[in-house]
């Protein structure tokens, strides 16, 4: 410390004045006779110690005040190397990017992130501006650049860790754009993150216009101990309506410690139906199978979870799913032309294409019968019925099929030699998309000129759910299908809603759809065996028939219903089900109301769990549409909580060179201290005033305050 006016230090001698005055005052005490000396003595003994302490403090304060004044007058100063760059001297726009992805749910990382942000904001100077962005929200900007730093703190208190992984790089780029738009001379981005690779796209090259500082909430060298359910699957091991189910859980230990006796719990509905204990070595995965027999035919929401307090991340220790015993499409195939020769049987190819779905998550369970056997079947047990080359049926059978479709069942007509157009038009006129006119024979199957005479399948209606998957490479196989014969159709009545999904290359309709009541009807104008077409021999036969039946049973759009992750865009086909609005509710009662557009609704789940759909009314009168129930889980890619390569940080931080020296500034600058000394004098005098005030005045003031209260 140096002084501009060191002569004033002589004023330090004046600090002895209070001591001299104190001593003089003691000698000037007034003598006064007083009768109640006993009471005076008693009172004095009680407070003598505190009075002496107070007097010494007062004396010290007075000496200090005079000494500080002398120091201040001497104008002390120091040299400092701080505050010589423009970054230190000029206003800065600071954009905070806070990672709020699922990894923040680990341990106390989120609380640490909040604390770090508060500290960082507190360090800002009043002339700096601040903004807040988060990484795992649709709308990342929480607060734009503002000089009111309290807004940033308030907004941070409202932020919650998301169940999404988050995109730090995307937020960083957005923050850089925001900082670049600021008019302040300095710009800085502070990323507060978990230091996990899942949230950062390390391969992405970026260039930044602002300085970046990364603050990790992870302690140095901290290895995150996390147990996660990384996969889960289930299947029905028997084809019965309520059957035996098998659930496979795959648990992975992402930590560095072997874990023994990890408890797994399988919950279906409100009950825990299975408990297991597994050992998982560090870095290893373990699979466990639960077996359970369902008693009910209803949809049951379930969750499998790691019931261990030290499982690490909360969110990836659970896997939500739902079971629907009628999850697969139960299809009744009515064989109109059975044959003892397998290749000649009408359903030979179809039954093999619709392979029993017991081993697959979603599939079609075919059940075969004849027109006569149809009488003995209860159509309510099925989701879809295929009339394959069936001749005429009895009027009771036709009426039963009609009712089946009206109630929501799916019906598919396929043609063949047995089909009687007149009988069909008469019996199924209310169901057929268009009336049948008669068979169009292009060529016999064994005709050597057949390749010239036949027609081929044309382009399907690609936006239709049946053909959405046909956009994939190789889908041109549909146009390779040869058709020797097909059924000609009459025009549909004017008011009838009929949609042609697929045509032949000669523009004759090949596949049509009609909605009747709550059900759907498909008409394939050729055969499902080799009589009229070589379709069954083509690769597209299997997906075409599968998807057609799934569509009839409304399964096409949600066949992966258990594989949604938080943040996915979930498209639900609700045509003919929802009139005005679709209501989605989760198990905790939160509801989302959506308006269908183009027969479907799209929603983005933000939390893991099971979601139920209601059409128009979710009150007492409303029933959840069980077939539209979906389960959503979090993306497991971030469960490892592995740190990302810190070379990335160096790239970010290297993108900006830091503050420049202000022109003309040396390595050090002088900092005057006298103003601080004078401020100290003020504080000391204030303390002296308070301590020096007579007790009577203090007690009177206190009494007034207490009375006023």
């Amino acid at each position, binding site marked *: 410390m140096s002084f501009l006016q060191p002569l004033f230090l002589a004023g330090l001698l004046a600090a002895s004045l209070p001591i001299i005055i104190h001593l003089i*005052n*003691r000698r*000037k*005490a*007034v*003598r*006064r*006779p*007083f*009768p*109640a*000396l*006993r*009471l*005076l*003595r*008693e*009172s*004095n003994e*009680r*407070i003598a110690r505190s*009075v002496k302490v107070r007097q010494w403090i007062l004396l010290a304060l007075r000496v200090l005040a005079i000494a500080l004044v002398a120091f201040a007058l001497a104008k002390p100063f120091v040299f400092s190397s701080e505050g010589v760059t423009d970054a230190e001297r000029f206003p800065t726009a600071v954009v905070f990017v806070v990672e709020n992805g699922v990894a923040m749910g680990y341990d106390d990382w989120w609380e640490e992130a909040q604390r770090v942000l508060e500290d960082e904001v507190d360090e800002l100077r009043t002339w700096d501006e601040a903004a807040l962005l988060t990484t795992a929200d649709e709308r990342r900007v929480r607060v734009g650049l503002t000089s009111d730093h309290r807004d940033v703190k308030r907004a941070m208190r409202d932020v919650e860790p998301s169940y999404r992984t988050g995109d730090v790089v995307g937020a960083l780029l957005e923050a850089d754009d925001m900082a670049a738009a600021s008019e302040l001379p300095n710009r800085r981005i502070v990323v507060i993150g978990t230091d996990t690779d899942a949230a950062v796209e390390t391969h992405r090259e970026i260039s930044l216009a602002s300085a970046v500082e990364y603050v990790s909430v992870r302690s140095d060298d901290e290895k995150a101990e996390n147990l996660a359910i990384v996969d889960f699957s289930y299947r029905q091991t028997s084809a019965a309506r309520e059957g035996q189910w098998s659930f496979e859980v795959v648990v992975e230990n992402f930590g560095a410690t072997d874990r023994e006796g990890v408890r797994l719990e399988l919950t279906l509905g409100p009950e825990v139906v299975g408990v297991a204990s597994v050992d998982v070595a560090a870095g290893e995965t373990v699979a466990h199978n639960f077996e359970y027999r369902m008693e009910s035919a209803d949809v049951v929401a379930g969750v499998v979870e790691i019931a261990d307090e030290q499982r690490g991340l909360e969110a990836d220790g659970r896997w939500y799913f739902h079971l629907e015993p009628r999850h697969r499409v139960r299809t009744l195939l009515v064989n109109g032309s059975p044959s003892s020769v397998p290749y000649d049987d009408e359903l030979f190819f179809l039954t093999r294409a619709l392979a029993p779905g017991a081993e697959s998550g979603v599939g079609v369970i075919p059940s075969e019968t004849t027109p006569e056997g149809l009488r003995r079947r209860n159509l309510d047990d099925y989701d879809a019925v295929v009339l394959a080359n069936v001749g005429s049926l009895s009027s009771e059978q036709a009426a039963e099929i009609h009712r089946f479709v009206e109630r929501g069942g799916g019906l598919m007509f396929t043609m063949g030699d047995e089909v009687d157009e007149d009988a069909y038009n008469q019996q199924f006129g209310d169901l057929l998309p268009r009336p049948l006119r008669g068979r169009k024979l292009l060529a016999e199957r064994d005709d050597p000129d057949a390749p010239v005479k036949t027609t081929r399948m044309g382009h399907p209606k690609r936006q239709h759910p049946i053909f959405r998957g046909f956009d994939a490479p190789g889908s041109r196989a549909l146009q390779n299908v040869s058709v020797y014969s097909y059924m000609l159709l009459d025009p549909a009545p004017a008011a009838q809603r009929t949609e042609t999904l697929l045509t032949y290359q000669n523009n004759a309709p090949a596949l049509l759809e009609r909605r009747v009541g709550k059900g759907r009807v498909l008409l394939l104008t050729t055969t499902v065996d080799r009589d009229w077409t070589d379709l069954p021999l083509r690769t597209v036969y299997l997906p075409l028939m599968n998807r057609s039946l799934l569509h009839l049973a409304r399964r096409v759009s949600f066949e992966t219903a258990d594989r949604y992750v938080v943040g996915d865009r979930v498209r639900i086909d609700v045509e003919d089900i929802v009139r005005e609005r679709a209501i989605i509710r989760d198990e905790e009662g939160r509801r989302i109301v959506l308006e269908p557009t183009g027969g479907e609704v799209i929603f983005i789940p933000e939390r893991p769990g099971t979601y139920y759909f209601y059409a128009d009314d979710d009150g007492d009168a409303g029933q959840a549409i069980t077939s539209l129930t979906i389960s959503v889980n979090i993306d497991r890619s971030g469960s490892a909580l592995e740190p990302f390569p810190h070379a990335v940080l160096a790239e970010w931080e290297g993108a900006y060179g830091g503050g420049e020296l202000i022109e003309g500034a040396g390595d050090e600058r002088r900092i005057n201290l006298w103003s601080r000394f004078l401020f100290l004098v003020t504080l000391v005098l204030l303390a002296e005033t308070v301590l020096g005030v*007579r*007790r*009577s005045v203090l*007690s009177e003031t206190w009494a007034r305050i207490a009375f006023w209260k």
Partner: protein
Amino acid sequence: MAESLRQTYLDPEILQSLDNMKLRARRLADGVLAGLHRSPHHGGSVEFSEYIEYTPGHELRHIDWNVYGKTDKFYVKQFEDETNLESYLLMDASGSMSFRGERAPYSKLEYASYLAATLAYVLVTQGDSLGAMGFADTAGTLLPAAARMSHLDDVFYLLEKLEGEGQTALDISLQRIAQHARRRSLVMVFSDFLDADEKTANVLRVLRSRQLDVALFHIVDDAELSLPYEGLTIFEGMEGDGDLLVDPDDIRVRYVEAMKEHCEWLEKTCHRADIGYLRTTTSAPLEEVCQHFLRRRT
């Protein structure tokens, strides 16, 4: 000399305001002289009190035959008797009583003497007999009780001779009065009671148990209550009890509390022992204090 003493202590205005006051002792004493004090014993006097129904044992001559003629029942007339009172003034003349605050009109001893003289005059003019005794470090000469107006001069003489020196021998003086006073006598003690303690309380209780009617006049100076002094001060004891260097501001709150506690203790002690207690400051008007005392005893 007696006339001059009367001039000294009897303010004509004070006496005027007390002229019609009647001292009515709380407990009436048996007396020989007919006065104005009501007796608890009903007897044959001229002042009619009330009728009570006749029962065997009453004198037949007291039956009111006129009432019998009207109501056909025997009623006996009751009469009030009149008595006199023996009183003693016990004056504290210790060093502490000579204290006079900067704003006080009298010292405590002067105030107590004026108060005692006023009451003495009232009592003697009523025909009551009055005695007096001063005390400081020892009990002084006891002036026996008498009801003569000329005796009042002796009382005034005694009051004038009190000097306000030495320590307080309150307990001894109380014991001495207890030996001389007759039952149901009124003993009025004028003191600042700064040295009063449990021993004093016991002596007072003994006096009360001997059927003496005791009344304490607690004389205090305003300065004693509020300790109004400023600056570093050496307080000197007035009864040879040393001195104390202190800033009054530091101890004022605690001292005032201690003084208040002491006064309350004394008041409570008197209340429990059925002893009259009246605390007054030397700035309070004498006539009001006298009136207050006499009214309370009515």
